[in-house]
């Protein structure tokens, strides 16, 4: 037997070379919504091959003793700008908007695996993310893609997995906005029966200056194929969205939904999952007057699937703090963990991701304390069974300025 026991402190700096890894004695939150329990996780290659107690291992298995520390699936951000925005205020570093394309705007080819936001969020426990176009004045912004945050130049991602849009207060009337959105869905429907070129010649398509990419994307939204994330807040707008979902058989996900508690019964009946920022209780517009810190609890109690976003650019890992606050205000702990992992994978069809279950890719985080406490931090992050380096530009700067050598900082490296 040549099992090696490694302390987590050492792990941060070395690569695991064994064929398989046993994470032993962790308090495992599988992400499925089940209560956490002390158990072991066996990883072979990229995949979780077993979970349980007293797992049988062979001689070439590296054993990581976790001593009861919390273990969760790698967190998945359902709505981010990771890899497509470097600095918000610098247009030349942004790839999240298009002048020409609308519903068909795909950010996939803009993804930069070397963006500094990737190691930063990864070192904070986010192992993959959906990046999406940013809001525009048009009701549909375009298509988001899912990316594995291992920083590899061989980008692993799933292209154009969801449509993103918004209804609510706008420059004109929200009624006009809703009407345009519905007309776009009708165009999508029609494009199933006629060539895209003919759809483009229709009066509305022409008036809105739609391109063929826009029409092709719209066709995927109607009749439930492509997940469609629609941001909206006002109670009555949520009802409008539910009506559209039924009429056009949409695979709808609602985002923000700050006034959802006012229409909770209808939302529950619709079975639509939601993405919320649980810390945003500001009545920031006349669409969000019902905003409160109890949103997560009310949705969770109604059995609605809840996922998490954050308003803070670049710090998508702060969904942990958000979900922690949701729990402080009454959401169930395991729903909160699920909301950052399996719920996202399920909703967006991310295959074999998002939970610690046999057969899934081993995207796993071992935490130094309760992951919903914002003061906690990962001790070990695995993506596809590979130990990730937790170094970030931020940690390099910290190292440099903690170094008290008497020389210019530019020589401290």
């Amino acid at each position, binding site marked *: 037997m040549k099992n090696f026991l490694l302390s987590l402190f050492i792990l941060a700096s070395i690569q695991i070379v064994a064929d398989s890894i046993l994470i032993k004695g962790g308090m495992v939150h599988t992400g499925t919504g089940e209560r956490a329990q002390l158990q072991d996780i066996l990883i072979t290659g990229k995949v979780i091959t077993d979970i349980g107690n007293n797992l049988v291992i062979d001689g070439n298995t590296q054993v990581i003793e976790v001593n009861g520390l919390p273990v969760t699936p790698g967190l998945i951000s359902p709505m981010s700008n990771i890899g497509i925005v470097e600095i918000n205020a610098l247009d030349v570093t942004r790839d999240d908007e298009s002048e020409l394309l609308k519903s068909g705007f795909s950010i996939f080819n803009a993804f930069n695996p070397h963006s500094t936001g990737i190691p930063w969020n990864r070192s904070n426990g986010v192992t993959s993310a959906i990046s999406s176009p940013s809001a*525009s004045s048009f009701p549909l912004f375009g298509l988001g893609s899912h990316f594995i945050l291992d920083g590899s130049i061989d980008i692993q991602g799933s292209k154009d997995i969801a449509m993103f849009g918004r209804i609510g207060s706008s420059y004109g009337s929200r009624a006009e906005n809703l009407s345009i959105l519905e007309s776009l869905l009708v165009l999508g429907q029609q494009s199933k029966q006629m060539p895209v070129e003919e759809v483009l010649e229709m009066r509305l398509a022409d008036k809105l200056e739609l391109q063929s990419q826009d029409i092709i994307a719209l066709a995927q939204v109607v009749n439930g194929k492509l997940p469609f994330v629609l941001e909206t807040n006002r109670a009555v707008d949520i009802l409008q969205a539910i009506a559209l979902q039924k009429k056009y058989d949409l695979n709808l996900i609602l985002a923000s939904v700050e006034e959802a508690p006012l229409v909770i019964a209808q939302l529950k009946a619709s079975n639509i999952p939601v993405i919320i920022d649980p810390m945003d209780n500001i009545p920031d517009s006349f669409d969000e007057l019902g905003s409160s810190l109890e949103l997560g609890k009310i949705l969770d109690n109604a059995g609605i699937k809840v996922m998490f976003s954050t308003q803070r650019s670049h710090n998508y890992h702060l969904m942990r703090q958000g979900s922690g606050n949701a729990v402080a205000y009454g959401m169930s702990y395991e729903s909160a963990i699920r909301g950052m992992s399996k719920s996202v994978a399920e909703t967006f069809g991310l295959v074999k991701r998002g939970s610690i279950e046999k057969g899934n890719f081993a995207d796993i985080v071992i935490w130094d304390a309760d992951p919903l406490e914002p003061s906690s931090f990962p001790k070990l992050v695995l993506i596809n069974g590979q130990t990730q380096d937790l170094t970030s530009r931020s940690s390099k700067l*910290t190292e440099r*300025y903690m170094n008290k050598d008497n020389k210019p900082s530019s020589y401290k490296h």
Partner: protein
Amino acid sequence: MKNISLISLPLLLIISCSDGLNFGKMDSKSNDGRKENAFESTYMPMDSQPVLFRSANIYDGLGQEFLNYDLLIADGKIIEMGSSLSQPGIEVIDASNKWITPGIIDIHSHMGVYSAPSVTTSSDGNEATAPVTAEVWAEHSVWTQDPQFALALKGGVTSFHVLPGSANLFGGRGATFKNISQNTIQAMKFPNAPHSLKMACGENPKRVYGNRRQSPSTRMGNMAGYRSAWIDAIDYKEGMDESDADKHPKRDLALDTLMGVLEGEILIQNHCYRAEEMAMMIEMSKEFGYKITTFHHAVEAYKIADLLADEGICAAMWADWWGFKHEAYDMVQANIAIIDQARNGTGCAIVHSDDEVGIQHLNQEASKAMSAGNRAGFKISKAHAMRWITSNPAKAAGILDQTGSIEPGKDADVVLWSGNPFSVYTRAEKVFIDGAIAFDIYDPKIQPVTDFDLGIIKPQTIRVQ
């Protein structure tokens, strides 16, 4: 043009100053029926009864923790902290397994000047019509019915400093408030608190005015703009110092403010991200003979931590914000801890919010900053980190003699927390301001509801039940 959301770019809107109640030289001239201290505080504490907190765990806001102690407050003041205190016939609150801290103080808020809902008609924080607007006072923009005050109170915030935004080189005066909504601004103002003057370095002023093809459009233009204004202020001050009142120059609101800084009565609150810019601001303060109280945002403060400690300048920072602009690119989570620990722990670190959500959770922000510091190798206790959101911001606002710590004689601004305030699961149960209960999590009658919140969704109910 890309859309830059105000949420991801709050700093575009920001920066302010403090308001000085004292006009210095102006006072001596004001004997012709004019009011001397215009716009001074008319704040009166709410009625209160003495309260004895029994068996509390206490962070005193000065770095100490006291386990299983009693705390007595009466007549709006902190009376005594000790073991087995007793006072017959007064209200006793069982605080066992709970924590008490000083009221939380935010040194950087725009509540009231950027009220909710954030609509153009409530956008009152930046007089972005000229790079030097030292004549405006943030308090003159405050909307007393901003629903954000009550939300901050639920997060334990008892005092906050409202600043103008950062569009201008000199944004105007800031003022400190007690967190009790009243129908006049003066009735909310913190008594005897100094004004501040908001200054702004870097990207914001040069962008705002550069886009209009006027100065400043560069960082060197920023510096020239500040220095020209200080030269005028020195000239004005010399005129006002003339013993013959007939030789005094005509009163000028902007120069009154700058003169107040030169006389040490108005505190400089300086929005500044980059290390070399902070160092330049320090050099300029020496050129003209004034003191900088606090650098705000200070994302790169850790690069010049010893300099800030040597100069006795506080840095008010976020725990982890970054990336929204170029000057916020070099974020380290240990920033706050590095400032705190500079020069053998003599640095002055503050956790600020500059944000209507963040102000509700300053305890959590301090918790993140503390744990990041400890991961970087420091040994910072919770009791010590509590200073970052209590006594240090009180010092920076010039109100430490009145609040910011649990010490006999200070204002009884205290928070009773359901558990340890460094945990995400802990909530403020009761908040006292000047000894009066201002918020009680279990009593809807002691939860403030602004006029805005009343009947706005349904006429029969308040905005959020």
